[in-house]
């Protein structure tokens, strides 16, 4: 479904604060896979997601979605295949428009829009039913402004918008990070529900190892722009929080391992 080859991205190339965000990323994500990406801050996990979404242009490498090379396509061109939920609940919806109008935007994701009025009776009814599935009593607030909703409600609606037209790939960018724990759990539940119901190919970036363990079929661990662990379904089943923590601890240790420290450890071990 998603095929990434030799992806490379450097920010501020040539300047003092040059930062290599992605280094030779090679990964294949199959249909119906639900991949979670975890990693330290600045590990490149969000950059990878943005590269898949088309918000960031890699300087090397290719990205294919469903066999089509989309590397040179811009984000809105990829929206035909990809839908996204952002970390910031305010990014995914237009606050000055009604819930129904927002949903309409998503209803036309990747499709041509014509100067006709589509937002009427039957479609509104359909939106109402879909809102009911969020279980947030939003179905009666179709005509309310998006800006009047709480962050969690907005994120839930964003999620609904993302799956309104079944996408080939669903990208979730730390989409519960800005929510309080209770709302986050609610949104995670909805995520699980939608992904399962639609058998979506999903890539979720998260900072919560708990979510990485609970959700999805595969974990990619990133560090310093590389995928350092690719934990497949069978291994993931037995994975514990401690295992993940250990892996991160290892990363941290390796970072602090200076040649001098290594030399001294080497001498002391014998």
């Amino acid at each position: 479904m998603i095929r990434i080859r030799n992806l490379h991205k450097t920010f501020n190339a040539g300047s003092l604060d040059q930062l290599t965000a992605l280094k030779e990323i090679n990964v294949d994500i199959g249909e119906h896979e639900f991949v979670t990406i975890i990693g330290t801050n600045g590990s490149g996990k969000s950059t990878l997601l943005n590269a898949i979404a088309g918000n960031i242009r890699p300087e090397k490498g290719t990205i294919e979605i469903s066999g089509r090379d989309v590397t040179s396509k811009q984000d809105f061109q990829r929206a035909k295949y990809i839908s996204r939920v952002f970390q910031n609940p305010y990014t995914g919806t237009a606050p000055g428009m009604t819930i129904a109008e927002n949903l309409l935007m998503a209803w036309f994701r990747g499709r041509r829009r014509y100067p006709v009025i589509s937002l009427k009776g039957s479609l509104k009814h359909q939106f109402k039913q879909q809102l009911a599935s969020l279980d947030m009593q939003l179905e009666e607030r179709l005509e309310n402004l998006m800006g009047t909703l709480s962050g969690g409600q907005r994120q839930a609606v964003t999620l609904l918008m993302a799956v309104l037209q079944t996408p080939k790939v669903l990208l979730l960018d730390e989409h519960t990070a800005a929510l309080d724990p209770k709302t986050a759990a609610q949104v995670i539940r909805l995520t699980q529900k939608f992904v399962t119901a639609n058998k979506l190919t999903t890539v979720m970036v998260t900072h919560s190892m708990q979510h990485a363990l609970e959700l999805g079929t595969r974990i990619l661990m990133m560090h310093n722009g590389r995928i350092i662990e690719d934990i497949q379904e069978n291994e993931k089943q037995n994975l514990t929080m401690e295992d993940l923590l250990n892996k991160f601890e290892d990363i941290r240790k390796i970072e602090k391992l200076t040649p001098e420290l290594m030399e001294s450890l080497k001498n002391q071990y014998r």
Partner: protein
Amino acid sequence: MEIVSKKWNDFDVLELQGRIDGLTSAGLKRSIDQAAVDGRRNLVLDFTHVSYMSSAGLRIILQSHKTLKQIGGKLALVSVPLAVMDVFTISGMANFLEIHDELKALPETKQPGVDCTEIKEMMIDGISFVWRAGSSSIGKCFTFGSEDKLLSSSFGPTDSIVFKPADITYGLGLAALGDDYSDYKSLFGEAVVIGHHFFSYPAVLKPEVDYSYFSPESQHSLNFLYGLGINGAFARILRFDVSSHPRSLDMLLKAAGEVAETDTFGVVILGMSGGIYGMHLKKSPILEHQPENGNIFDASHFPHWMNFSIESEDINKTIVACGIVVKNPVLQHPASKWILPENGGMHLHAAVFENGLWSNSIMEFELELHRIMMEFEPQKVIHLLPETKLKSGFIAVINLEKN
């Protein structure tokens, strides 16, 4: 409830104020446990200002009484108000609890069962030690195998040296338990032998300590790639308590060197950790795991082959370590030459156990050591680094013959 701790003769007194009930009893338990962990094991609870005690408090006192007793301490109560006394009386606990009218009424006790004349005290580098002499016999140290093949990870079936538990009293090395090389070859890891009890930590992804308790007829095979054994008795046993300011192993072993009679000596340490620095292999260094280029300590391989501490880990763990120490690295024991680090004066392996209480009585050291071996759950075995800090515990010294 407020708890103020103070000293009365040899006793550590906890002055309690207010109610002891379901809400406050947990705090009391924490205070008592902390005192025990800190080595204050002759505890007196001063009830003068206790206005009320519920059954919850009763339970805590009962538990603490048992725990302290088990680790060679004791719990006494003084100045118990009548209303509270009733609770002890009705519950029947008054029968076995040591209850006195006031602090002055406490019996003047020294460490139970200790013959005062055998105990000596000394100050080294500002640390006060208590020590007693033990056996005067000189122990034997022997090394086996070679670490030559470690760097290249090229150990093979013929490199495995088999011991029976009875062969080694104390020791360390790279070892694994098992009968069939093909079964245990990938399980080699840091190992330690303490009083014939064997603990090894397989160098695998998610290791669990493997161990074999000693009994004279035990026929388990201890398979070493290389290592060091010490057979002998404790010549000196030191006790230290620096809970408030944990000291590094380096410093503590220097003190041990002061009482050791030989230049190279073996040590067995039982201690409460104040931060451990350790290392252990992540992969068994056998031919099958040989890296394609370079050796396992190359920069590119090192992190994948070695687990190491970059800062202190595991505070308040019970650790039991053993190994050899030389007073003067230049004049080190010829037999131990390769087993000691370059310019280093020690090589110790340690078994780390989960936190638990043990007696701080210097007379009961051997018993407690045995009990810990048998009862405590081992978490890992590591190559101990000299930066490791200890809060309190014992260092037992075995004088080693020169050869």
